[in-house]
């Protein structure tokens, strides 16, 4: 589904921040992306949500080689990806409702459907009373929930989240991780970039570990055992 082959990336004429990245993410998989600061997590996320083009190598998403795709097709692929940015990137002049509704409006969904879905999701993330509020009047945690709701409202095929529970208290954080789990069970591929060892220990998913511009995938023992049990 998502395949990186010998991918390298540099900014301008600077040194390579990612070099020879190779991995395959199967549909419906769930991975944590981790590594020390400056290892290139944000750069890798950028490549995955098509925010930048690789300097070298091949990237294939949803069975299409993105290096050769025309703009309109790239836009269609982006619509299948939900992103939770670390700095949220909410549109400050739009209400929480309109921010969450944005992906559905881009998809051209009817207004009635948008209203029902957005109301339901905002209620679910505990922001039912803040639908008309502008982002600047919301706390960091509330903004993060709006950003997460916006990323998942369109039922994306791939969800990329950069430190999605960083500003949340344990209860809300757990609730949102359960939401990600639920989406994952419905077939969404999920990649969560995090520094939180606690989060990774609690939810045993394979880890994509970035270091020195290269990537290794480690699977926790329990996860391997579960998979083996699932096979036999």
């Amino acid at each position: 589904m998502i395949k990186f082959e010998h991918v390298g990336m540099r900014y301008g004429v600077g040194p390579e921040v990612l070099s020879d990245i190779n991995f395959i993410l199967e549909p419906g998989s769930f991975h944590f992306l981790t590594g020390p600061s400056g290892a290139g997590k944000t750069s890798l996320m950028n490549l995955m949500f098509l925010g930048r083009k690789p300097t070298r190598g091949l990237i294939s998403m949803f069975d299409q080689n993105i290096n050769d795709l025309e703009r309109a097709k790239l836009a269609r692929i982006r619509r299948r990806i939900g992103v939770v940015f670390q700095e949220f990137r909410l549109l400050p002049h739009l209400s929480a409702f309109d921010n969450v509704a944005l992906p559905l409006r881009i998809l051209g969904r009817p207004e009635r459907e948008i209203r029902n879905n957005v109301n339901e999701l905002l209620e679910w993330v505990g922001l039912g009373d803040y639908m008309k509020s502008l982002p600047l009047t919301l706390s960091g945690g509330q903004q993060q929930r709006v950003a997460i709701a916006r990323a998942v409202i369109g039922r994306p095929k791939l969800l990329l989240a950069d430190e999605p529970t960083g500003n949340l208290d344990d209860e809300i954080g757990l609730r949102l991780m359960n939401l990600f789990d639920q989406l994952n069970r419905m077939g969404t591929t999920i990649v969560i970039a995090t520094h939180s060892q606690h989060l990774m220990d609690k939810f045993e998913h394979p880890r994509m570990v970035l270091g020195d511009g290269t990537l290794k995938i480690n699977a926790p023992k329990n996860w391997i055992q579960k998979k083996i049990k699932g096979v036999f």
Partner: protein
Amino acid sequence: MAFFLPGDKKLGVATGRRRYDLPLNKSAGTGFLVLLIALMTFLGVMALAGSFALGSMAHHWSSGLENKLTIEIPADDATGTIRTREDIEKLSESVTERLSAQNFIRDIHALSQTEIQELIAPWLGEDAENIPDMPLPGLIAVEFITINDHLIEKMRADLANIAPNIVIDRHESWLADILRLTGALQFATLLTTLMIGATTIIAIAGAVKSRIAIHRKDVELLHLMGASDRYISRQFQRHALILALQGAAAGAAAGLLGLLAISLFAGDTAAALLPEFQLNMIHIFTLAALPAAACFIAAATAKFTVLRELALMP
């Protein structure tokens, strides 16, 4: 039930009217753009109306003198002696009689003293008739069925027998100069109209580029969320169209008022020297289409500028 209730606008709360994903209507310089389009439309209306007036006058002059010439019996004879008014009238009658018999003449008319004084009134004033001794030539207006050089030469030889210094004026020399001048002026006004259009395009493109720069992060976000280039450009296009509609309507109204003022205040003075000029239906439609053209230019410029900027994004 409506999602937003009336009167919900308060600090930190969005209004129910969501018109743009990007806050273009709140951008600085919106009023400047409306004013600029209004001024450009006003100038466009004035320049185009000027071009139409010149074209119409040139047509009036050239078509009015087609197949026509003027015979002048000079106020003095070949020796330089001033002719009396009676002599000139007699010579005029002889010329009229001689030419009336020709089958290639459609109409012939000797101008009376009063008519000649009316012609020179714009230069000498209404008091010209009070100068009885002022020598005036005799003028005879002749219309041919079809004019050609051979007929004129034949006529010139014929009339030389009546008075050798009779002048035949085909109006070619002064008419050619005037037509060349009006043609040049007409070209200049059309060029001015085109320059106004080009300036509008450049100004709108600049304004759109600055708005993209202001909202670059938001535009990039929409792009990353999968919004098509068309989806994003449509927002700028609609914004430019609304501003252009406001500006063009104001500019066109000001232009029409300006034309009305010109016709009211300069009409009497110009009427004596210039032929009468009225806008025809094509002129009126073209002037009315100018604001629509301004709106189209604004929307199209916005669209193409945004598409070009978006093409730089991955």
